[in-house]
């Protein structure tokens, strides 16, 4: 069994990761960290660069939780997370949640909302502290 977390190098992603590590420890399961982004901008800050990857690896190693890191690019990140969470071993999906105003939601949609509705596992939505 495992906990799956959608991680991007922002404070929302960091909050999700912290919660996911705590959940995995609590449930004594492994952790799957997914760094997924459509990658359709010229420069995509959601992809981990080498520095951020090193920091993530160090953090995960320090947590003592058994973990794997998955990278996905070129497809819709929601589709990626839905596909990965279809694995019967996944018992919980953790995501970071941020506020998005109505206009932004209308234009860009909300990935969090789609994950909440489309993933067939319990989803834990985490908000970063103030």
């Amino acid at each position, binding site marked *: 069994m495992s906990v799956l977390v959608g991680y991007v190098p922002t404070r929302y992603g960091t909050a999700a990761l912290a919660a996911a590590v705590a959940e995995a420890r609590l449930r004594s399961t492994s952790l799957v960290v997914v760094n997924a982004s459509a990658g359709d*901008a*010229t*420069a*995509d*800050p959601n*992809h981990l660069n*080498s520095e951020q990857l090193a920091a993530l690896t160090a953090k995960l190693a320090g947590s003592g939780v058994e973990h794997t890191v998955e990278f996905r*690019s*070129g497809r819709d990140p929601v589709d990626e997370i839905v596909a990965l969470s279809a694995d019967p071993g996944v018992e919980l999906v953790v995501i970071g949640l941020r506020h998005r105003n109505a206009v932004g939601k209308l234009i860009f949609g909300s990935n969090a909302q789609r994950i909440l509705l489309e993933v067939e596992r319990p989803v834990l939505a985490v908000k970063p502290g103030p």
Partner: protein
Amino acid sequence: MDNVGFLLDGFATALTPTNLMFAFIGVLLGTAVGVLPGIGPAMTVALLLPVTFSLPPTSAFIMFAGIYYGGMYGGSTTSILLNTPGEAASIVTALEGNRMAKAGRGAAALATAAIGSFVAGTIATIALSFVAPQVVKLAVALGPADYVALMVLAFVTVAAVLGSSIVRGLASLSVGLMIGLIGIDAQTGQARFTLGIPQLLDGVDVVVVAVGLFAVGEALWVASRLRHTAAELIPIRGKGMTRSDWQRSWKPWLRGTALGFPFGTLPAGGAEVPTFLSYALERRLSKHKDEFGKGAIEGVAGPEAANNAAAAGVLVPLLSLGLPTSATAAILLAAFQQYGLQPGPQLFSNNSALVWALIASLYIGNFMLLALNLPLAGIWVKLLRIPRPYLYAGILMFAALGSYTVNLSPVDLALLLALGVLGYFFRRYGWPVAPAIVGLILGPVAEQQLRRALAISQGDTSILVSSAFSILLYTATALVLIVPLVYRLTHRSRDDEVRPAPDEQGSSSPLDDDNATKTTELNEMAEPGVQSTSRSVPPDRKDSE
């Protein structure tokens, strides 16, 4: 009245609120398209041509000049922070600038690029104000045969310099010349290459060709490569320029200017070559030779000054002779033609108010660009985070709209798409787009001059080589073609360089980039399966300067 008086009059025109606004819109747009890789000032000016039909020419040209200069400033930001040059003249900046950014001195690199651009832009604009009228005095004495020689030289150098290889450049040039011939011949009334389509009798509009090759071609190209991993953006760090940075920068700025301006004024292919030369020069003169390749500030300051100085230099032959030597200059020439003006010696006498307002707006634009780029580089970089599907959807919409409004003819839309596909294959096979644009716009002018010369001599072709000036130019043209060939034969090895030594230094350096994947991608784009091209530069993505 002397030139200073004319220039002051120009300032009076350029400083009116309306024209200041157009200058501001221009530099804003120019910086934006300069920052975005693959979208350049040439394409932007082409897209705006139909929109500016209704503007007075002075305002339109002030805006275009802003876009032209802005592209130069914006390109350096992308080079430094992304290692993907926003346009061709910023390739060298990426070498040292990106290392500086990685080493946490991004702010200093951006500052030296912006201030260097400003210093060079200002000095070169001053030089432009004084050199252009002198060239005009010489140009008055030139006959049609001399113009033909000048244009042949411009064609060949543009084809040789702006592409990854001379053959590809010449091929691209031929495509442009061919498209330029479509339509009714003005002297005999014959329809040429119209394929029986009546809408082609008027010729193919420059807007359709430029927008098709640049915008639609680029959109298709990006769409075909969208799945490739995005580039890594380095955050701006560091404190800006220290005392020693200033000391190390000011000489390269001046040397870059001194190299860039003359190269720009020669019909020798715009702003790219002097940046390579400047980089090589700074590398040789620097007291910090060991820092080169690891982020030497001289390697940013010199080339950035050179490309802006060259950008001003390119305007000298454009305004005084009607001779464009870069894609953007060619589009500007088309813009002059749209308003019924023919750049050349007469422009300075018949439309001096327009010309001097344009030159004055360059001074103003430089100040605006410094203010926009020095403190705001971080905001411009945010443009790179726009998802490309949205960005290119917008560009395609404007492209289609712009092409349709030229003649309100659906045939133009079909042509736009066909040329877009052609533009895609240009990119796919490493053909530069710029020579095609120069050929398209300068071709009909050259033809007119050639036939005028032959009409004067009553068909005797020896008139073409009758003056010392034209013989000199033909010799130079022959040298441009032969020297690289000889160089290649004497340095025969599998991956030799087509071009002379300084460029070789400039271009081979991105190859030893530590970021292996990015470099491979860069090379792949530049040389799809070809062994002896001259540069490891994406050949056509940015013929934009």
